[in-house]
């Protein structure tokens, strides 16, 4: 594949220099994929599946060989089996990522558990492919991984360019210094809730659904606000803010062209990789829909990766429903089961009235394998979790988003601790098996 010089530049990396062809035209090098698995049959099928894709595929049967080959080849994408004799897969993953943070690594395993998935993500895995996988699943995961690689390299280039352009205001003032970002748009969602669209800070590398930013109103203070936009939209950073105090009052009064301080993204993401192949039940109460919207975007943009997708939304009254146009859009899809219920309504309302937990007993999903993502006021999350567990859902597959007093967002001020967890760093997304103590022990 040739591109003219002046078109897409060859990816950065040790091979960038080799990309130029003899006549000065830049040749797009073949993307390099490395598969590390102790089972030959797995390596053979991976090779066979990707045979005609135009990739350079290399395989290794153990972690040490894998790391050696990775150092030599600088692959774009690596598949690592978790359970291997010798050097464990997680260790290989960590070493790969620490040597080259631009490597995209995907963990494969026959023992898919949530804790494994979370562990892999924490060590820098991009995604998670449970065995056995079909050829289509493997091809799709390869495509996504390489897409991500392109993104990562582009971001690395942007960062280098930004650094060359000069220091960002606040540089040297540490991780507690917010970066100024312009408000691109502002609109009122409900009587006490406003959404702001921000120009992302320089060097912004995107966010994962479930994460939050610390937003700073100059001279007033900071507040932790979930990022509530489409993760695929790198050009705008969306936040939906409820007016509950001095800082949020100030943030919600900002207009287009004003400047907001941003620090982030912080926190743990929703386990969308783990949810592949499963039923996904999203339960959103009130403003809880804001931190779930990015997850919904990602679920619907990759709809064929999941089994059933249910979106259960509760709000106080119809005037308090967030994102009504989007809800309509989602409702119009045939591949989504969307239900809305209100706590209270006047006679003109044609939909359900009753708390959102009433939607759970009759919702159509397979509790044995489903993953749930629940956000709302704590009481609502507690009761919704009870209903989901009553349906037979495993607590390790039920995820909630906790809220606590946050002053720093980076695990240093101590305010957001619940038990041994820092909500800003170990959360805000927690599996219910971890969060159960937080709900059940009073004042913990």
């Amino acid at each position, binding site marked *: 594949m040739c591109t003219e010089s002046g078109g897409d530049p060859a990816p950065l990396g040790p091979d960038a220099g080799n990309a130029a062809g003899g006549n000065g035209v830049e040749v797009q090098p073949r993307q390099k994929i490395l598969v590390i698995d102790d089972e030959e049959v797995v390596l053979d099928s991976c090779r066979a599946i990707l045979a005609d894709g135009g990739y350079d595929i290399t395989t290794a049967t153990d972690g040490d060989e894998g790391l050696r080959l990775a150092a030599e080849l600088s692959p774009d994408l690596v598949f690592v089996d978790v359970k291997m004799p010798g050097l464990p897969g997680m260790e290989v993953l960590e070493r790969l990522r620490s040597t080259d943070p631009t490597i995209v690594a995907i963990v494969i395993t026959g023992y898919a558990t949530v804790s494994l998935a979370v562990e892999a993500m924490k060590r820098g895995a991009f995604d998670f492919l449970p065995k056995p996988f079909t050829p289509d699943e493997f091809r799709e995961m390869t495509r996504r991984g390489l897409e991500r690689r392109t993104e990562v390299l582009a971001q690395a280039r942007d960062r280098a360019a930004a650094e060359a352009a000069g220091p960002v*205001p*606040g*540089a*040297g*003032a*540490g*991780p*507690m*210094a*917010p970066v*100024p*970002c*312009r408000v691109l748009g502002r609109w009122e969602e409900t009587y006490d809730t406003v959404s702001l669209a921000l120009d992302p800070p320089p060097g912004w590398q995107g966010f994962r659904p479930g994460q939050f930013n610390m937003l*700073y109103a*100059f*001279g*007033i*203070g*900071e507040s932790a606000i979930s990022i509530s936009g489409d993760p695929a939209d790198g050009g705008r950073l969306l936040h939906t803010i409820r007016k*509950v105090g001095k800082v949020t009052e100030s943030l919600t009064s900002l207009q287009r062209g004003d*400047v907001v*301080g941003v620090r982030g993204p912080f926190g743990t993401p929703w386990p969308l990789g783990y949810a592949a192949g499963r039923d996904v039940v999203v339960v959103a109460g009130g403003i809880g829909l804001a931190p779930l919207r990015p997850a919904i975007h990602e679920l619907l943009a990759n709809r064929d990766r999941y089994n059933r997708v249910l979106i259960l939304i509760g709000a106080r009254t119809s005037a308090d429903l967030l994102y009504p146009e989007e809800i309509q859009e989602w409702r119009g899809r045939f591949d989504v089961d969307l239900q809305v219920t209100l706590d209270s309504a006047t006679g003109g309302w044609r939909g359900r009235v009753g708390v959102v937990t009433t939607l759970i007993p009759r919702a159509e999903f397979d509790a044995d394998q489903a993953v749930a993502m629940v956000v709302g006021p704590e009481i609502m999350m507690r009761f919704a979790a009870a209903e989901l567990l009553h349906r037979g859902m495993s607590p390790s597959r039920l995820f909630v988003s906790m*809220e*606590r*007093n946050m*002053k*720093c967002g*980076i*695990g*240093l*001020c*101590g*305010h957001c*601790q619940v*038990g*041994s967890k*820092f909500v800003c*760093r170990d959360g805000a997304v927690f599996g219910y098996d971890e969060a159960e*103590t937080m709900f059940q*022990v*009073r*004042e*913990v």
Partner: protein
Amino acid sequence: MTPVQVLDRTGLDRLIGALSARGYRVLGPTVRDGAIVYGDLAATSDLPVGWTDRQSPGNYRLERRDDDALFGYVVGPQSPKTYLHPAEVVVWAGERTARGFAMAPPPEPPRYAFVGVRPCELASIGIQDRVFLGGERDAVYGNRREGVFLVAVNCTEPGGTCFCASMGTGPAAVAGYDIVLTEVIDGKGHYFTAESGSERGAEVLGEAGAAEAKKGQAKAAADLVESAAGRMGRTMETAGLADLLRQSLEHPHWQEVAKRCLTCANCTLVCPTCFCANVEDTTDLTGRQAQRVRRWDSCFNYEFSLIHGGPHRASAAARYRQWMTHKLAWWFDQFGTSGCVGCGRCITWCPVGIDITAEAAAIRAQQEVV
């Protein structure tokens, strides 16, 4: 294995001078307001010469010794955290600009040399290193911590509330110092054995004129420290303590402590490892200049756990439980070590004399109740 050296009081004066000459601000124990607190040292005469402290739950007072020991006491209400993790510090100063606003990088922090740091304080510095430098690096702590010169002093007499031996943090300094001294006053005289823990420590000892210790001197010093280890007034039973506390969140004893605890936060203020801090954003009257200040906070404060509608931990029982369970159990999950160094400050400075070792023992004793 560097040989043990020895200094006399004049040598110690030279040591302080050598540190000063290298540009350090030399800090150490001094007597002020009826307590031993950190202050600037220009010479050994600035130290609490001939003073000792009498500490017990809820009590602290100074007394005259019948000798001229320079280090004849243990710890006062302060610790190195007073300087490395200051009670109030400007994190950044900013102003409005055409691009929105800009933050000025923080001013150059001073270079500290601490003389007279106790082994428990060395341990607490190590613990705060894990807190502030282990994950996201805290610039305020990091900038002050880098290059700190530590002259430690082994303890030869346990303090009234000390329990460092059972926490594995003393009375001997094991690591983390540039120089460690042990003060000996016996028939042979008044001297300080000295060992270096770093290259620059060895250099400074050289500049102070340290000589090689005579055979009996090193042994006399070691014997004193060993004897101190055996004379501790209290112990913390640490076996299985973290798990015990993790499982005792609903233990009735918390209500018992709550009857006594005033939630005054003294313990967190004097504790050398407590790190919780509030972040306050302010602006001047014009609204053009802003700054962010970090100020010590405490989990005992009512507003500490404020979420909508009120604090999450409203009761005294919940707040005491948070402090103790964090210190002795959850700290392991977060940072890999205990958060307690056995210095006894929380016991001495608690107005009602609550003793953390006794509370741990009480919870352990009442296991069958739960």
